[in-house]
């Protein structure tokens, strides 16, 4: 199986603080990878380095054969949720997604509607995102990550703020995408998410990554 993401000797320092130390990881296609670890262990920094939001102090990240920061600035063909997804509060959910979709311009209104319905949001709702609950914003975040049918999904705590029904729906969406051959990397505090969803699990501790047995 060809690796879709290669992380080699990745280190990230902020001044004297080492957030990530010599991380190595190979991510294959069509699997769900879980990253667990306490708050501040370096999960989000790792995700930001993979996506290109941060530049590494040392080492490199290769996504779909392209080195981040050298061949491309951001990971291509990727859907991302990192930390709380932010939207334009004065726009409806649909308008927010339409604005984002307009950048790559690879999908139309129908795909946007489908992704919203998939996560349990009404695309015709006139409710502004500013009036959304945290759970609805999270659902919208997931919709924006999946709407363009990316090969890779990088999801930092995607179940945050979701109710039980929402968690079940998102789990169903993620396993469905995995079955379609998509690669998913997710961080979660929830042990159940990790056990149910993930094919491989890694634990982050003080910036170091180690294989974690399920």
């Amino acid at each position, binding site marked *: 199986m060809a690796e879709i993401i290669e992380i080699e000797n990745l280190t990230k320092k*902020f001044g004297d603080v080492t957030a990530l130390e010599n991380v190595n990881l190979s991510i294959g296609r069509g699997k769900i990878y879980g990253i667990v670890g306490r708050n501040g262990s370096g999960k989000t920094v790792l995700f*930001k380095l993979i*996506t*290109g*939001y*941060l*530049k590494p102090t040392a080492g490199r990240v290769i996504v779909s054969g392209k080195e981040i920061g050298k061949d*491309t*600035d*951001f*990971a*291509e063909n*990727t859907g*991302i949720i*990192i*930390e709380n*997804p*932010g*939207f*334009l*509060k*004065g726009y409806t959910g649909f308008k*927010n997604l339409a*604005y*984002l979709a307009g*950048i*790559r311009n690879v999908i139309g209104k129908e795909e946007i509607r489908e992704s919203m319905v998939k996560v349990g949001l009404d695309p015709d709702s006139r409710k502004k995102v500013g009036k959304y609950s945290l759970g609805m914003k999270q659902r919208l*975040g997931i919709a*924006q990550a999946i709407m363009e049918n990316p090969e890779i999904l990088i999801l930092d705590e995607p179940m945050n703020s979701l109710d039980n029904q929402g968690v079940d729906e998102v789990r169903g969406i993620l396993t469905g995408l995995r079955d379609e051959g998509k690669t998913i990397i997710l961080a979660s505090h929830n042990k159940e998410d990790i056990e149910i969803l993930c094919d491989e699990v890694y634990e982050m501790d003080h910036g170091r990554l180690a294989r974690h047995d399920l």
Partner: protein
Amino acid sequence: MDQSTVFQFFGGVSQDGLSWAVDYDKVLYELARWLLPIGICLLAEGVRLEKRRNIERLSCYRYEAMRIWWRHKFGRSLLYGIASAAALFLIVMAADLVNAGGIPHETWKVFLLWIAHMTTILSLLLVLDLSGLGKFAPAILVLLEGGTFLAGFASMRTARFMFGMWGMYFQSKWYYGERGVSVLPSLITEGVLIMLAYLAGGILLKKAVQKSIVCF
């Protein structure tokens, strides 16, 4: 002409018979009147940038290259900023039309200098926003405008080099004759500044990503 509201708010501070030592209160009053529309436009653009900061993390990676994202952000922000600056000017001009039944012939000159100057200020706002000074950027720029104007007003020798002078019709050669600031060189300099701001933004962006201080 000096009854025109457009000239009062967008023409800048007139030099006619004013001496800093004697009439500093009048100069400061006219300067405050000049800074008011600049402050309104900066505030509007600052609020717009702040509102959009939330969605930048989700939008920037879709451009795939940072320079493309910056080009879009720079271009779009300048367009919005110029539109709001022009709208403000037109609103005041409409008020003049209603009150006086007409507008002075020289209004287009005031408009040209104001828009060129506002475009430069807005491009500087975008660079300051990238440098992590976002919330303070409008205040910094108003201070820059006011400070450089006062420096130029105090010494006519250096006036033409002072940023705060370049947008004022009443300080230009168009109004003030030979003693005024040359229009074409100041417009060219502002054009160069806008280009430099765009280039500096690209460099700053790389550093900002390294330090994680930009929208990410």
